[in-house]
């Protein structure tokens, strides 16, 4: 579904992502892990259009999307969340989801100003869609709260729901469990599993190893911008390079994580 070919991103002399190729299969949960500064988020940003690669290509459904601006990438059907939650804090929970519907809105600025019946009907339809989406994920009761008044875990969830509202077929989650307590993490895992079962392909960056090991169908390990391992949770767990990257050379082959 998503394929990157030898992506390279450089910041001055620093090579943040070094010839990384990976393929995300449709319907799977694909995780990218790696120590701090391994280039995971940079890789994400390259796919979502925030960063332009110096070399390499990105294909989505066999279409070249390399270097497109972020809003064009979103149009193609790739939604994303951010490492530090980026909700629209001046708006309510419901409005945040409405924002996610942006790509489905047909009315233009003139119709909006005149408040024509077409525009009012569309607005009503959007509202219904968003409310049913919020009911599905259990945030309906909190729809009128300001987004930043939600508990942390639910802010993360709302950000995911907002990205889902774009009708994305691939969802990229940047450390969704960061800063969460174990209960929240468990709930989030169930949630991610659920939306994956409903047909969304998921690409996630995560530090919570237990979460990744149980959730991911396939794991790619980055270190210093280089892909050092790829495979199922079991493969990666026993990979000598991964153990070295995480624990150091002396543990090579000695530890069963």
């Amino acid at each position, binding site marked *: 579904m998503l394929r990157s070919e030898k992506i390279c991103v450089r910041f001055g002399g620093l090579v943040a992502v070094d010839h990384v190729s990976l393929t995300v299969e449709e319907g799977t949960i694909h995780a990218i892990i790696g120590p701090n500064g391994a280039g995971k988020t940079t890789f994400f940003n390259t796919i979502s259009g925030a960063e332009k690669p110096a070399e390499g290509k990105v294909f989505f459904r066999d279409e070249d999307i390399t270097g497109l601006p972020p809003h064009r990438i*979103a149009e193609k059907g790739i939604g994303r969340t951010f490492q530090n939650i980026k909700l*629209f804090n*001046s*708006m309510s929970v419901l409005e945040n989801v409405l*924002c996610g519907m942006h790509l489905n809105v047909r009315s233009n600025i003139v119709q909006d100003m005149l408040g024509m019946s077409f525009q009012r009907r569309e607005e009503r339809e959007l509202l219904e869609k968003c409310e049913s989406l919020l009911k599905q994920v259990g945030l309906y009761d909190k729809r009128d709260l300001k987004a930043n008044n939600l508990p942390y875990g639910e802010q993360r969830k709302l950000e995911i729901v907002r990205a889902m509202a774009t009708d994305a077929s691939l969802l990229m989650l940047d450390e969704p469990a960061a800063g969460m307590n174990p209960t929240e993490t468990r709930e989030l895992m169930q949630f991610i599993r659920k939306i994956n079962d409903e047909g969304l392909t998921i690409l996630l960056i995560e530090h919570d190893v237990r979460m990744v090991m149980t959730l991911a169908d396939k794991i790619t390990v980055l270190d210093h911008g280089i892909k050092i391992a790829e495979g199922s949770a079991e493969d990666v767990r026993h990979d000598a390079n991964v153990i070295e990257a995480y624990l150091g050379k002396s543990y090579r082959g000695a530890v069963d994580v």
Partner: protein
Amino acid sequence: MERKRYSKYNRLLVALAALIIVLILPYVFSGYILQIAVYAYIYILLASSLNLLIGYAGIFSMGHVGFYCVGAYTSALLATKLDMPFVICFFAAGLLAALAGAFVGFVALRLNDIFFAFATMGLSEVIRIVIQNSDFTNGTLGVTGIPLPEWFGRSMNREEFYYLVVVIVVIVVVLISKLAKSHTGRTLAMIRDDQNAAASLGVNIFKYKMMVMVLSCFIAGLAGSLYATFIQYINASNFGITVSINIIAMVAIGGMGTVSGPVIGAILLQLLPEYIRFLSNFRQIIYGAAIVISIMFAPKGLVGIRWRRIKLIDQLCCLFETKLNNEES
């Protein structure tokens, strides 16, 4: 007793009272007061249009006066040199200002925050200086003898023009309020809150910024046309940077990102100086201080203050409400 925020009933009452005052004003006062009122209405247009940029989209423009100036000159020159009817002058003013806005936006909207503010400030000064030094626009002499619009085969008098301005202002403010509540308004708020998040949801940020810039400048141009036609004489020196700052003050003090804020701000800041004439030398200082105070103590402007939190006002309101309830029952 139950404490609701402004009920719909209260709002309607306020709106009705305001409308009556606005409508009977020309019968009670004439001349100077009428002029002040028309200025206030023109500033409502300017503040509301700037609010689209600053309040809704988070684009801090300091060059709004430039587009106002373009509108005023377009209208004045068309009316005096080509004897165009007012309708054409009026819309041409809006269109040309919008065109100028599109150009400035195309160049400057790539800049962020404070850099955009400086760029627009500079460009608005460029517009003023070019107009002031060009023969086509009568240079420093300005344009004189701008006619009032004609209707029914005669020229409008100032009272009639007053009503025309009122109608235009009401239409524009209503349209802006509809826009603010619509999806476009929400999209602008997205851009204001977080551009990266907005882009990740498929918002073409540059396109929306351009649209709101063009719309805002269009309204500023209309305001310019009304000003030129009402005052019948314009001079580029009236379109200096202080006008931009006054408009910003109106938006900031009234309440950014609200429909009523700029309206209240514009009326207040236009009327206030009339009552403190003796301080006129300190006008800019007072405006500056007012901006600082409002940002420190009422960042959401006058509209955003929760008046009920102030004890005395709350007690007065309660008294008033009980009285109303008693009368109803």
